[in-house]
């Protein structure tokens, strides 16, 4: 699966693919070792599927379990939301700003 995703990354200009930016924050960025990447998915991929593929590519993300959150275009992503060309995805652990 990891290879499949990487293969997609090399086919960004092919018909039937969409390319998006993916941002990682906080402990998720440390785990992945990247702050931002470009990734391609098949057209009509849903957000839930896109983030599942990212977990496969970056198994370190599985360490966060259910506390991992996903956003598309600066909003928490509904699972059925379709991912479009140029979207900005983000992956991060549950937030902890503010105070005690």
């Amino acid at each position, binding site marked *: 699966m990891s290879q499949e995703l990487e293969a997609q990354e090399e086919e960004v200009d092919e018909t039937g693919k969409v390319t998006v930016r993916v941002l990682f924050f906080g402990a998720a960025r*440390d785990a992945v070792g990247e702050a931002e990447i470009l990734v391609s998915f098949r057209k009509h991929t849903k957000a839930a599927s896109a983030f599942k593929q990212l977990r496969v590519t970056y198994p370190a993300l599985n360490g966060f379990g259910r506390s991992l959150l996903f956003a598309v275009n600066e909003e928490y992503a509904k699972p059925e939301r379709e991912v479009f060309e140029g979207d900005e995805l983000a992956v991060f652990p549950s937030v902890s*700003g503010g105070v005690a």
Partner: protein
Amino acid sequence: MAEKPTHDFFELTVEPIDVGAVARRVVLPECGATVTLDGYAREWTKGKRTLHLVYEAYPAMALREMQRLGQEIHDRFEIAYVGIVHRTGRLEIGETSVVIAVGAPHRRAAFEACEWAIRELKRTVPIWKKEVFEDGEAWVEGTAETLQE
């Protein structure tokens, strides 16, 4: 979304926050009370000493989530305005990380709304805290386990 003019404000800053300036930025003639939460870096937590903290934000989304929070707070509470300023970057012990100020005609609503706002901010606004200790550092885990269900 409210059509009436808003006095709300939502900001991220890397500069030290002046709590009094935030608390008094908006004073409206129909208001009698502002409740302010000043959150700051605590040195001692469960016997462990923190040397300093680092706050990281997903800035554009953090501001969007604060604005969403602002709209919801007006639906829930009889308040006149809410203002939130959150600092990012390195913070020394005792420095303010976040100020939430809520002005209302009556203090009860201001207290309730301010407490709701910090709870909601910690649940949904994408800002993360890293604590730096004498012997290492650690991202602080949030608790929003079911936010996305």
